[in-house]
């Protein structure tokens, strides 16, 4: 399996990335490739910078005034921090799902339709409806809400809300979906549903997930990257990382040792 994948170009590459919050350095010289149509997991203890690094990929760090990003991050061969790049367009190609599900206080339909509407992705009302239904189906939520698309998105359960957010992200037809601890507020069954969803999604999309659960990273990802104190300690095939990691720090973290 791996040799086939390695032959393809990675869809996203990061080289020598540094991120600063004011004077404090949060990410130190990190380089990582994100292979296409795979799930890459970023793991590490709290405060190690994995969420910060994730947010570099869709330039969400731009919204934080004191945050500075240095280095070379390329998406499909193009530097995403180039001043000529339109951030709004970038974020329609790279979607994001957050830790706590945050549906808009609108109807389920309007939640999913918002993205296509602002990017003018649909040509007609029927087309928009198609997009919404397809996205809900791909997110595994349609069967549960098909009869109540007009109800507010906030009336769903936690797991359903998170799937709604996934549907919302899918609706703009991105290539990459970034997930920042998407299951940390969910119960094990809801988590399992989303993990299964991720597995089927990777055929069409590339997924990068930040998780503080090593078991989840082990279950869902093909590539795992371990962060510690802002550094990328080790990255590689998930199977290798969890059976025989090369770095002692990685070994200590994943076996629950004080390193």
């Amino acid at each position, binding site marked *: 399996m791996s040799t086939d994948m390695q032959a393809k170009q990675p869809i996203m590459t990061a080289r020598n990335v540094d991120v600063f919050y004011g004077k404090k350095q949060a990410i130190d010289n990190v380089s990582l490739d994100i292979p296409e149509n795979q799930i890459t997991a970023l793991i590490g203890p709290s405060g190690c910078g994995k969420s910060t690094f994730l947010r570099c990929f869709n330039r969400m760090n731009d919204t934080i005034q004191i945050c500075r990003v240095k280095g070379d991050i390329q998406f499909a061969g193009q530097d995403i921090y180039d001043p000529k790049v339109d951030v709004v367009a970038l974020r329609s190609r790279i979607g994001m799902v957050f830790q706590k599900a*945050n549906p808009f206080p609108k109807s389920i339909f309007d939640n999913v339709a918002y993205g296509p509407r602002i990017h003018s992705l649909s040509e007609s009302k029927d087309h928009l409806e198609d997009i919404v239904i397809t996205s809900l189906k791909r997110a595994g939520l349609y069967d549960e809400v098909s009869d109540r698309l007009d109800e507010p998105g906030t009336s769903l359960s936690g797991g359903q809300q998170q799937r709604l957010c996934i549907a919302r992200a899918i609706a703009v037809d991105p290539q990459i979906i970034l997930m920042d601890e998407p299951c940390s507020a969910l119960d094990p069954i809801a988590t399992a549903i989303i993990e299964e969803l991720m597995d089927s999604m990777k055929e069409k999309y590339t997924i990068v997930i930040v998780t503080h659960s090593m078991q989840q990273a082990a279950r869902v990802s093909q590539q795992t990257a371990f962060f510690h104190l802002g550094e990328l300690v080790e990255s590689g095939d998930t199977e290798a990382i969890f059976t025989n990691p090369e770095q002692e720090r990685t070994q200590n973290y994943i076996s629950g040792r004080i390193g």
Partner: protein
Amino acid sequence: MPDYLLTTSPQMAKRHARHTRFQWYGRIAIGISISFMLLMFTAIFFRGIGAFQKTMVAVDVQFTESQIDPSGARDATSLKQANYKPILLQGLQQVIPGATERRDRNNLYKILSNGAAFDLGERVANNPDLIGTSERVWVAASSEVDLYVKGKIDPEEIPEELRRLKDQDIAWVEILRASGQIKKKFNTAFFTSGDSRNPEMAGILSAALGSFFSLLICFLIAFPLGILTAVYLEEYAKKSRLTDIIEVNINNLAAVPSIVFGLLGLAIFLNFFNLPRSTPLVGGMVLALMTLPTIIIASRSILRSVPQATRDAALGLGASKTQTTFHHVVPLAMPGMLTGTILGMARALGETAPLLMIGMVAFIVDVPKGVTDVATALPVQIFLWADSPEKGFVELTSAAIMVLLTFLILMNIFAVYLRKKLERRW
């Protein structure tokens, strides 16, 4: 069961006692506040309730053409200005035949309000077909009669020399009352006419409309400006020394005494820009300046309370900053911002000092029809009436206060209703 669950140690007893004491402090404090408030409302109510009734006199008049419109031209202006005094006097003399002397006739006529004749003139001008008919018309009684009928003047207590209403006048009034020609009716004039020298003719309409137009101008200027400023400062402006200074200044402006804004209005709007003095336009502009800091501060606080997660969700989908702000943040913040605006305007409704500075202190009889008509405002009207020496204005002042308070309470209730209705969408 363990012992500590059933018995109370001395320390626990002290804690419980402190808790109970504190609750009682709270209740007593609330009780005192409410009683003061009830006292104030009751006092105002009983002082002012009388103003909602007006003593009216029924007079059988003949609209003789020769008296009213000798030329037969039916010209509205001349109809209004015709002399209706003889007609009215005739009607009164039918009931009180003894008043034939000139002095008696004048005194008899003084039972009626000065505006009675004017009132008749209006009626005939609006309906010229009345000419040639005879009818029983109800006209306003004079202020002294009004006060006497309402029981506010006791002839037993005050000697005749010190009264305006002489014993003979009183006797005539009693005759009219016995024949059912003097009655207390609902005082519609209070709500339909402007100010007047005569308390019985005075109404709050001009003041109310003046207040309304001023508040309208205030809202139209302060609301969009305030909201957009708050949105810019909170969502767009990069935090820097400059924004800090701006924030401090806005906070200070909210505490500036309102009369200073009046001075500003006087100096700039009236003297520099030569805008018409004493109009709701200028009044509204001054009130807008005064309300703006409150709206900005309240709106910023509401905007800050919109969770960052909503913005992140929109931005993550590729919405631009403007789309995020106006599709998501502002609608979520709007209930709170509207509430803050309404509360700010309720305060502006009761402001007197700045309006005095820009000249809305005049005696306004005509009802203003637009924002550039000269007008006064409710709090100013209250101030003027309170200042007047005539006894009849006492109950009018309290009545006007009641009207003002009613508007304030209604605005506050509206603000609460709005917030409750729009809030559930969160």
